[in-house]
Every structure is written in C-alpha cells, then in structure tokens.
C-alpha cells in the first residue's frame, strides 16, 4: 500500500462495515461540541447538508459561499431525480442491487465499501428530505412516485417534477438557514476561497477574498470541509453554471491533497446542441426524458429532410437496436458515444448537423399530451425558449455535453483528503462513481456525504484535538498565504495585455474538448500537452483584466479560476495518457472491443490514480490505490 493512500476501509462483511465503523468511531460529548470550530466551503447539497447537520449537532460552523445566497449553488440545476433503494415499487430493488448497479455503472473503478455505504444511506436521505417538506412527486394515494433512470432496471428514482435538485437544495438550504438563524452557523456570502493553509502537516484553515470589497482574509478552524463541486468548466462549454470552478480543490491539491482520477469526466447525452460560437454554456435536458423519448437518426447519412418527413422504416432507433434490454436507458457514457459515432458518420441532424433526435410522438400517442406535459412540462418549455422549436410537435435535437466530473480530491473512507483535517464532499471528491456516474446518483452522493457520512466520520479527527485552540490566523503560514494570494491577483491586473479571460478560457476549452473529451488517443493527448503550456504562457503574458481589486471585478475573479483550470487541464491530459485502457467516461480510441465498446484492462488499471503536486504542472507524481473487488464480479459491461 502507498503510505500516503490508506483508504481506512473497515473489514468484515460489506453490509456490516458502516455500522461497525460508526460503533468504533470516537464520539464527541454533546457539551464539548461547541468547543470545535469547523469551516465548510460551498453551500450546495453536500456543503449545506453538512453545515446544517454539524450546526445542529452543536459544532461551531462557518459556511462560505461565493454566491450571494447559499441557495444559488449549482446543485439547484439538477433536474431528474435522486436514487433511493427503498423498493417501494416491489420490483426487486435492494441496497445490494443499488450498490451493484453503481459499481458496475462506474465500470469497476470505485471502492466497494464506499459505494455500499452510499447505497445503505440512500433510503435515509429520502426519509430526511420528505420530513423537511421536499415536495416529491406523489401518486393519487399519497405515496411517493418513482421513475427509472439509465443503467438500472428498477424504478428507484424519486423526483420533484423536473426540479429535483432545486427542491433538495432548498431543503438543505432551509435546514442551514435554521441553523444560521439559531446562531450555530455563521454564513459568509460572496466570499471565495483562494488558498488552503497547512501548518505542521495538518489543515489549519483557509484564505478568502471578499468578492465585493476585494479584502483578503484568513479563517482558521479545527477542521475544514471542501464541498466545492466539480471541474467540468475546464472545457469552457459544459452544463455547469458559469462560476463553477476547481480553485478550492486545486489550491488544496497544491498544498498536499492528492487529486484522484482527474480524467474521469462524464459527458451527458441529452443536452441542447450549441447554436453558434457565442454560446456561453450548454443546457442539459434531464436524462429522465429517455424514459419516454426515443432516440433516432436518419438511416441515410446526410438526409436533410424534416424529421416528420422521414418514414419509420428510414429511421434508425440505434439504442433500441443495439441494446434491446436497456434500450434508450443505457448509461450515459454509452448513449453519448453512440451519438458521437453516428454524427461522425454524417447522421447528425439540425442546422449544424450536431444533434440526434429525441422523439416523444410515440409516448404522446400512447399516454396523451397531458401526461407528457405533467412529467416533462418545464423541460419542454425550456427547450422551446432556447431553440424556438416546439417539442410536442417535432422531435427535440440533443447532443452530448460535459456534465459531471467523477474525479476529484482523493479521500479515504472518512472523506478525509491526504491532508489531515481537510475533508472533501460531494462532486469535489472522487469517491463513489468510479469512471462513470449513473443518473440520479450525484444528488444522492452529495446528501449522503453531508447528512450522514461526514458528521459520523469527522469525530475521529476532532476528538484528539479537545482543548486545543485552532491555529491563530496571525500565524506566519496564514500571513504568507495572504501575501501570495494578494500578489497573484495583483499580477493579473498588472499584466495589461490584449486578450480577455474569456478568450483564454474558450481556447483552453477547445483543446480539452478536442483531445480530452469524448474520445481520447495517445496522439491527441500528447498534442494537448504540447499546446496547453504555450497557451498558458500567453495567458500569463497577454491577459487583460481592467478595473481594480478593491471592488466587484468579475474578470479578476475569473482570471484566478482560469489560471487554475490551465494547471488542472495538464493534469487531466497526463492522467488520461497514463491510463491505457477505456473505462466509463474515459474512452481511449486505442482500447475498444470489436463492437466499439470500452475495453478495460483490469490487470493493469483496476486502481485509483492519485496525483501529487510537484511544483511543475507537467510533472506530477503518481500514487496508486489498488481496488479490490470482493463482492462485485468484474465483467465487460453489457447493456444488450
């Protein structure tokens, strides 16, 4: 075992591990909890649920968000649903099946014990959210409704119209607001983390910048929790919100936290295709649409007829044809790659030939327009607004887009990074989804980490610190980090070049999409690794950020984020190059089966690649955590 990477996985039968762990974990006496200070960065599902729960338990919590309100975090945009192994449908679901589906869906690149725990608490999350008043969809008898999602043959997804993320986040935000009102949690809004401070090998706190006044400040605590989301925006165009960034995770990485599987990124198959070069982001249409929509392209390449004029016999419902048992509900990576293959062969539809059809006419005929409107009304409306086309009368056009990043900060079973005292939750960590995340599992993981896992695991770190005060923010390490941050931001303003931050971000995104996107090759990745440093050097020489650092300056904020994306991009390409296999979202052109499916190499790559910062973004050091599979049998994934 790599000395840096002790996963701290409990032993024994998998179904007992989490209970055993909790029984043996150290406990903090309720009256002692107020003696501990905890910093939570990020207020999405993971951050808000963790901060609310820790506050409620009695810890002194500070929660930081760079938004104006915690409710704006990007978890809010998740549409389709959240999985819970409740087996309310009596269709054969169980904790074990959710565990199995998740490991398999992740193409066998996740840690069994973590995934089992996730499945185990999934039911508690549904109970918790229902108790908070999350208005989940109901049946006429008043019981909860479910739908099915990609990669599963049972209906275990709970939902609130097409706004499940919004409703779950509001639930967590309201729980957090309650703790803020009670004075257990202090809220810092429009404050961005810019550095993590490590003293004597443990995390002492953070350095932040006030986005309104530009003031740089330090905050210290007994423990720091990062719940700062994923890094899809390294591709410039993604379904993430404009401000989503990697800075918190990246700064932690530079201070000693290992970054795991950075090349595991997910491309979501159902997004609205880009319409022009000014496009600032891509909009996702929930995967739940694949429950009732049928995906097809014209059989004839280059067929320019309107969809309604193409007769049934001349349409290729390619997912139903190739994968009869899962049909349109194959996992995301499979659906995306098939769309790309057909588009590359000239079957793309729409003005830019950059889409495939998602057709509801059959479902509308079968169920009636009213039912479809009830299920997907808001999504159809959104599609209509963006494209000016009516999906009730003509099929939607969809295209894959970067959506989620499975990679992230390496964490052990306790969600602690390789820097003691620094924890990572939700999308910011790498832990549960392996090489591909199943639909409706991101919300589940964020809330599992925040409500149920961290509050039980953080105690092992806190207990030995009883009676010790946090490192004072007057400590030299804090001073030095503040100076560094100040200089970095001063520097962006001082370059006074000719190109905007967006220019560099867009160019970086193009390189990443072309060479580290849906399909990667050795040649392409080497090309990217040759091109990115050149563009990065230009960024450092020719950037233009106007204004000052003492008031709101959105270009300046973005400069710091894009700077970190550059360094991350190099690591992602490095990681993709090193992993000589295809698995889940990581598809290497050289490694595929005769049928064009991902070809894993379990002998050499059944492991987590965790990278250590060396000071040179092109030369990180690789550490390996081998993955052991005691319960799930490794097979070539088949959804046929």
């Amino acid at each position, binding site marked *: 075992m790599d000395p840096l990477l002790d996963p701290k996985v409990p032993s024994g039968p998998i179904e007992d591990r989490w209970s055993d762990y909790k029984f043996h974990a150290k406990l903090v006496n309720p009256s002692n909890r107020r003696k501990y200070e905890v910093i939570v960065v990020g207020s999405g599902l993971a951050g808000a*649920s963790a901060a*609310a*729960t820790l506050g*409620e338990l009695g810890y002194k919590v500070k929660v930081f968000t760079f*938004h*104006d*309100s915690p*409710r*704006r975090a*990007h978890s809010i*945009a998740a549409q389709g649903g959240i999985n819970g192994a*409740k087996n*309310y449908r009596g269709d054969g679901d169980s904790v074990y099946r959710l565990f199995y589906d998740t490991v398999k869906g992740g193409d066998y690149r996740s840690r069994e014990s973590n995934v089992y725990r996730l499945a185990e608490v999934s039911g*508690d999350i*549904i*109970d*918790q959210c*229902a*108790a*908070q*008043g999350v*208005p*989940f969809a*109901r*049946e006429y008898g*008043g*019981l909860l409704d479910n739908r099915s999602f990609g990669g599963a043959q049972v209906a275990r997804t709970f939902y609130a*119209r097409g706004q499940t993320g*919004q*409703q779950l986040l*509001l639930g967590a935000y*309201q*729980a957090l*607001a*309650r703790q*803020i*009102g009670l004075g257990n949690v202090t809220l810092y809004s429009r404050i961005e983390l810019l550095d993590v401070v490590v003293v004597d090998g443990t995390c002492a706190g953070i350095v932040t910048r006030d986005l*309104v006044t530009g003031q740089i400040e330090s905050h210290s605590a007994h423990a720091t929790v990062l719940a700062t989301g994923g890094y899809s925006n390294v591709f410039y165009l993604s379904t993430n*919100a*404009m*401000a989503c960034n990697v800075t918190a995770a990246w700064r932690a990485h530079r201070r000693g936290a290992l970054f795991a599987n950075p090349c595991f990124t997910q491309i979501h198959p159902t997004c609205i295709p880009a319409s022009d070069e*000014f*496009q*600032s*982001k891509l*909009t*996702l249409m929930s995967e739940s649409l694949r429950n009732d929509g049928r995906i097809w392209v014209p059989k004839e390449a280059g067929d320019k007829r309107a969809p309604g004029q193409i007769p049934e016999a001349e349409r290729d419902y390619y997912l139903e044809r190739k994968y009869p048992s899962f049909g349109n509900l194959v996992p995301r990576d499979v659906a995306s790659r098939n769309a790309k293959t057909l588009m590359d062969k000239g079957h793309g539809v729409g003005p830019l030939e950059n889409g495939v059809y998602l057709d509801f006419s059959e479902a509308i005929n079968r169920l009636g327009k009213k039912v479809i409107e009830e299920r997907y009304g808001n999504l159809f409306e*959104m599609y209509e607004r*963006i494209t*000016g086309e009516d999906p009730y009368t003509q099929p939607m056009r969809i295209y894959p887009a970067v959506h989620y990043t499975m990679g992230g900060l390496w964490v052990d079973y306790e969600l602690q990074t390789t820097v003691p005292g620094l924890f990572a939750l939700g999308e910011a960590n790498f832990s549960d989804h392996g090489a591909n995340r199943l639909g409706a599992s991101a919300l589940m993981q964020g809330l599992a980490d925040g*409500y*149920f896992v961290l509050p039980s695991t953080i105690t092992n770190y806190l207990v030995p610190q009883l009676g010790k005060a946090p490192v004072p923010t007057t400590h030299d390490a804090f001073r030095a980090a503040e100076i560094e941050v100040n200089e970095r931001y001063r520097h962006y303003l001082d370059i006074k070049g*000719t190109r905007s931050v*967006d220019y560099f971000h867009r160019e970086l995104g193009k390189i990443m999409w072309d060479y580290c996107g849906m399909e990667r090759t050795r040649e392409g990745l080497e090309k990217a690794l040759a091109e990115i440093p050149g563009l990065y050097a230009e960024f450092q020489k020719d950037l*233009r950020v106007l204004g000052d650092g003492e*008031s*709101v*300056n*959105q*270009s300046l904020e973005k400069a710091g984020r894009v700077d970190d994306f550059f360094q991350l991009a190099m690591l992602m390409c490095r990681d993709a190059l090193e992993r000589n296999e295809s698995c889940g979202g990581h598809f290497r052109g050289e490694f595929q089966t005769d049928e064009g499916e991902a070809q894993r190499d379990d002998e050499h790559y059944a492991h987590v690649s965790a990278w250590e910062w060396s000071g040179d973004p092109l030369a990180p050091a690789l550490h390996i955590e081998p993955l052991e599979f005691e319960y799930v049998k490794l097979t070539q994934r088949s959804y046929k």
Partner: protein
Amino acid sequence: MATTINLTLRVWRQEGPNDPGRFETYPAPGISEDMSFLEMLDVVNERLNAQGSEPFTFDHDCREGICGTCSLMIDGKAHGPQQGTATCQLHMRKFTDGQTVTIEPWRAASFPVVRDLMVDRSAFDRIVESGGFISAPTGAARDANNTLVPKPVSDAAMDAAACIGCGACVAACPNGAAQLFTSAKVAHLNVLPQGQPERYSRVIAMVDTMEELFGSCTNHGECQEACPKSISVDFIALMNRDYRRALRKNPRLLSQRD
C-alpha cells in the same frame, strides 16, 4: 447563419452603493437572434474590454432559469418582455433590429446596488432564516411513505416551491414588497402535512421579518406578472389567512405587538 440585429444599449453604471450612478450608452451591432440576453451582454462586455473600457457587472450563474442569480430590469420590466422567463432564458429573437434597450438593476430600497447591475438580495435569506423551514434534525425522520401527502396538496406545495428567489417580485412592486416571495415559501411548507406543527409560528415569524425589511403589499399584482416562474398571488391570500388565524389561535401574540 442566424439573422443578426443591431441594438443600442442604455446600461446603468454605478461604482458602488454610495455612487449616484448614471446611464451609459453602448452600441451593440451584429447580435445573433439565437443568443440569450446574457450572451449578448457577454459580447458587449468583450468588446468593451477589447477597447480598454471596463466591462459592466451583472449577476448571473446557471443560465438555465433555476438558480435565481440573474436579474435585470429590461425596458422597465423585470426579466424583460417574455412572460414566465428569467433573463438568462430570454433570447434575442424577442427583440427587433434598431431597438434601444434600457438595462437597470432591481430598483428596491431593500436590495441596495452593489455595483452596476448587481444588487444585494440577502434580505430574502433573513426571511427564510426567521422561519422558512421545517425543523427536522438529520436522522430523526421516519419512513417517507409513512406520511401520506395527497397529490393535489403535493402539487400545490411544488407550485409554490418553484420560486427561485430572484427578487423580480420585489423589483416589480411599486411598494418594494416581498409578499410573493414570502408567501411562496410559507405556502410550500404550510400546506404539507409535515409543515403543520410549525404552521402558525412560521407564518408569524416570516411575515414579521418581511414587514421589517420590505415595503407593504397593496394588491397591485405586478409581482405575479413579473415572476419568471409564474407564481400565483393566491399564495399571498393563503399567507394572509394563516397569519390572521395564527393571531386568533394565540391571542397573546396580539398583545405583544408594538
């Protein structure tokens, strides 16, 4: 290639809360009709940056109409001319060639301008903190299917809970009142069985906090028209009814009024 239009923008510029502020005029030629309104602003800002003028600040994030970060009074209308649509989902095909478009921040005393088009809406958080929740400590919940929620009740709760907290209702209100926002949260929680134990204390706390921070409602109904999620003013009626009931159920509250 999509059709393009030429616009003139009048944009509110204000250095900070204490600056009186002013309009600046910027030409915006060659705008593609497929762009969203915010992408159009991106383009104008990129051009300003290229000319060496500082871009203007505006709030935005998800650009999918759900996070509630974007705002903007567009020609005097909160979120612009299209009903039931947040600024980020408004597209340029709704504008005509040669048009002059006036862009302002939310105008409400409770939402002070931070800079240019960005305002401070934290007063909304204060209302939620005062009572906009169901107290449900983590881990104490019973099985979700043990609480039956009739579908029409759940649907009504969801209609109210769809609020994105953008503040358009306050900006559109001649009194700068926050009744629509507050009532949406009150109604979401007060109609559900899970929300019953705190129903009356919740409405009292939230309404009182709202009255402290915002103007008062005089039933203009502008809020409903401006709401990007088309939330109904009926929820205000529900909130008022619960507020009155709450006072009756606990007369001590009446004597505690100042």
